[in-house]
């Protein structure tokens, strides 16, 4: 009896709390920290299983200021990228001394060799970009269908599974306009301090049989990073 009441109430809340709310919950969780800082390891695996590893120090403030400073591989150490609002990115390559502004006009383009496109990395929240529908309520997860609001999206839909309790994403399946599944992402969330954050994200391009695994370590939150950290001037390291 008690169990059925719980089920009932849960179903009831579900009906009231529609897919839009669920997606907002996920956005809130993802965007909760004011800022974060840590080490990012990017592992690229091609179809023959060969791996390439890059490493960078990452700083992020809010949702759309992001700084990567690469430390590995040796030959690309010192390269830094600064992502700013409105799809502007600044690139600094030590051998060329001056930072260059990069305007990204093609969002379907892969982000420097990874399986994430610029569209996947956009700073806008999921709720802003997609219209959700609840497909299924599973034992531990909600299954949502996300339809892109922009007709320019490369995707026809994304099937998203989120954790029922904490609303963090578990998997995302990306479909092209021909309704073929072309990519899938899996997330491993963990709680660090007050926040849930993805310790590991793996994106697999099913057509190219190529995958990108991003591992976040040494994550620290809410350090009150100053806006000055995210300036073009700051891209160029101070002379030692």
């Amino acid at each position, binding site marked *: 009896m008690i169990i059925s009441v719980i089920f009932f109430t849960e179903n009831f809340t579900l009906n009231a709390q529609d897919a839009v709310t669920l997606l907002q919950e996920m956005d809130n969780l993802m965007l909760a920290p004011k800022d974060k800082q840590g080490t990012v390891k990017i592992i690229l695996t091609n179809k023959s299983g060969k791996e390439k590893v890059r490493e960078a120090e990452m700083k992020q403030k809010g949702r759309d200021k992001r700084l990567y400073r690469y430390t590995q591989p040796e030959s690309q150490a010192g390269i830094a990228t600064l992502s700013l609002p409105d799809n502007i990115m600044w690139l600094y*390559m030590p*051998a060329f001394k001056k930072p260059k502004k*990069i305007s990204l006009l093609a969002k379907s*383009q892969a982000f*420097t060799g990874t399986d994430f496109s610029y569209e996947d990395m956009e700073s806008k929240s999921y709720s802003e970009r997609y219209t959700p529908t609840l497909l299924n309520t599973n034992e531990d997860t909600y299954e949502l269908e996300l339809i892109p609001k922009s007709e320019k999206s490369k995707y026809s839909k994304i099937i998203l599974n989120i954790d029922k309790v904490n609303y963090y994403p578990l998997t995302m399946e990306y479909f092209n306009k*021909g309704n073929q599944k072309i990519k899938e992402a899996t997330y491993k969330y963990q709680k660090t301090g007050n926040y849930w954050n993805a310790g590991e994200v793996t994106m697999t391009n099913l*057509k190219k049989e190529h995958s990108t695994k991003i591992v976040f370590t040494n994550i620290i939150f809410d350090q009150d990073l100053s806006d000055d950290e995210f300036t073009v001037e700051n891209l160029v390291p101070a002379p030692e």
Partner: protein
Amino acid sequence: MDKLAQSIFKYRWVTIVTVILLTAFLGYQIKDLRINSDVISALPDDDPDAALFKEIGSKFGGNDMGMIILETDNIFKTEVLEHVQQLTDTLRMTDGISSVSSLTDIIDIKGDDYGIEIGKLVDEWDLPDTPEELEKLKQRVFSKDLYKGSIVSEDGTATLIIFTIQDEADIKSVANSIREKAESLNLPEKLYYIGSPMLVTYISELMYSDLLRLIPVAFILIAVVLYLSFNSKRGVILPLLTAAIAITWTLGTMVLFGYEMSMISNNIPIILLAVGSAYSIHVLNKINYYRETDGKRAIFLALTYIIIPVFLAALTTIIGFISFIFGAYLTIIKDFGIFTALGTFFTCLLSLFFVPAIISSLSLKKVKNVAKNKKKENSALSNYLLIPLTNLLHKHPKYILTTWSILILISIGGIFLIERSVDIQEYFKKDNPTRAAENIMINKFGGSKPIYVLFRGDMQSPEVLKLMIETEKYMEKSPDVVSTQSVADLIAEINNVMGEGYKIPDERDKIEQLWFLLDGNDIMPRFVTDELDEGIILSKFVSPDNKAKKVFANYMNAFIQNHSSEDCNIQITGMPFVDVTMDKSLLKSQMGSLSIAIFFVIILVGLIMRSLPKGIYATLPIIVAIVILFGVMGYAGISLNIATVLVASVALGIGIDYSIHVISYFNHSFKITGDLNKAIEDTIMISGRAIVINVFSVSGGFLVLLFSEMVPLQYFGLLIALSMVGSSLGALTLLPVILILVNRKKLIRS
């Protein structure tokens, strides 16, 4: 021979059961027979150019790239761009395709003092729709080598949609669905399909169609010839059954040993049908001949006489096929030689063991009537052909000799006119769309034959990249190279975007950092290996002319010798280089296989006849027929190619049989009667009849190849038929004359 003949009779049921079981077993294997129409995989590994070509094709993924060509009067129109976009989207949504690139989906990097703009050449959501925008796009396309001549033709009337097929995808089904989906869009522009996956699929379709259409036609045709000759069901069914069983065994064995059906071995069924039915015809003919007296005894008598000639006939044919193993350039030709030889062996075995076994197990009563009927039927052949021929031989042996001599002289003149061709495009008929696609590639996109220059060295070293640029500039000075592409161009391009000018930076760290922007780009694996220790310059060769290819090979080799070093080893290969070697090897292979075949045939026939001169006489008619064959090829402009190169040796192997029959019968008859004239007459009347029937059925079988979808095979069939007629005429006119002249002298001397 008597004993063998008796055993054949005694164990007839064992033979029949064994044949049935073997046929069932090997026939079951054929379900796994696969067609391999990939020309590149047929290139031999022991030719460095071919081996390197194959290695680069698989390492840098050139073999899995296909293209749709869209042709119209002007590409730079909004509706044309819309159609390109439709095709691009359709391809992208096709299963088994990993990437697509086209005018409406290609990256465009622009740079100026203010920064870099990474975008698309055409915004697919906002296609250029004003004359100004279209003109701007045109200017942009024609300003960069990355687009001009590689995505859009230099005259702006054709554009390519380039796609890559996934490794494990089934190429044929992907290629077919590409064609179906593209056609279903019903676009007003003309579409063509090209590139390795499309070509391989197309050839395999032609092969299937050949197999399905030609084999039944050949069966029916030979059946008609057989019925006209024997006027009995048995005379039709037995030879065809033997051939069918031999074909089953051969194809089954191919599967058992892991071989695939190639564009050459595709003809094995037709060839075995034509060749294989001949042996049964001889056996049947002989049995019928003796059967007028007594049923079972006829089989003994026939077998005692026929075992050696049929075995010999098969052996010489086998020699003709086996001769391809030595000196053939393409592995598919060697395989063809091995399996047709094996198939010939099977048909020989079946004719000698299985045919008599079947006949002796059946009732022999009706045969007498048939034999009588047959005599009447064939009297026309005797009256109008064989008797006049005998008279001619007796009265004017020297006229015959003179006529042949004149023919030979004329033919020798033709031999010098023979052209060689190694172009795969000649496999297709003139109206074939693949040829049209090829022409567009040659005329509008700077050629279709790939050239690869391989650099082994540090791909991030300024020296290596500069050497690549230098090599490209040198290549482009050749009149047959329009454009070149390499990772060095990309580095120079991005360096330019970074504001440092279109050049390779002098500092290594700049190159390494520029690489950061290129990493993961779809185009990179086409240019460099993952380890960055090998890179290629991709180019195309315009001229289909072999001389131009040789000139270019020398031109490039001179450069490579001067510039290749320990730090950076340079090698060049490509279809033009493979073509040059294939061209050389055509002649070598022709001379090699033909001389091997002639040598062994003379030795073999000499051994059987216990006299080398007789071996030479026997071989003369077929050598003459081959000389005439080459003469006809020269005058008719039929080129020597990978299929026609097979004709001479095959013709020798089959055609020698006629001479062997003539000489054997002549010896047999001359020994008994001691009368030269009578012996010649008997030979022509008995062997001549068998030979004429055989020429009709064998040539008929080969002429079916005229309906093949592939041009060289049409010529192959025609030329073999021609050689059969030539060698039978030789065996029935030239050879008897030689026999008359030689034996007359002997008679006079004695």
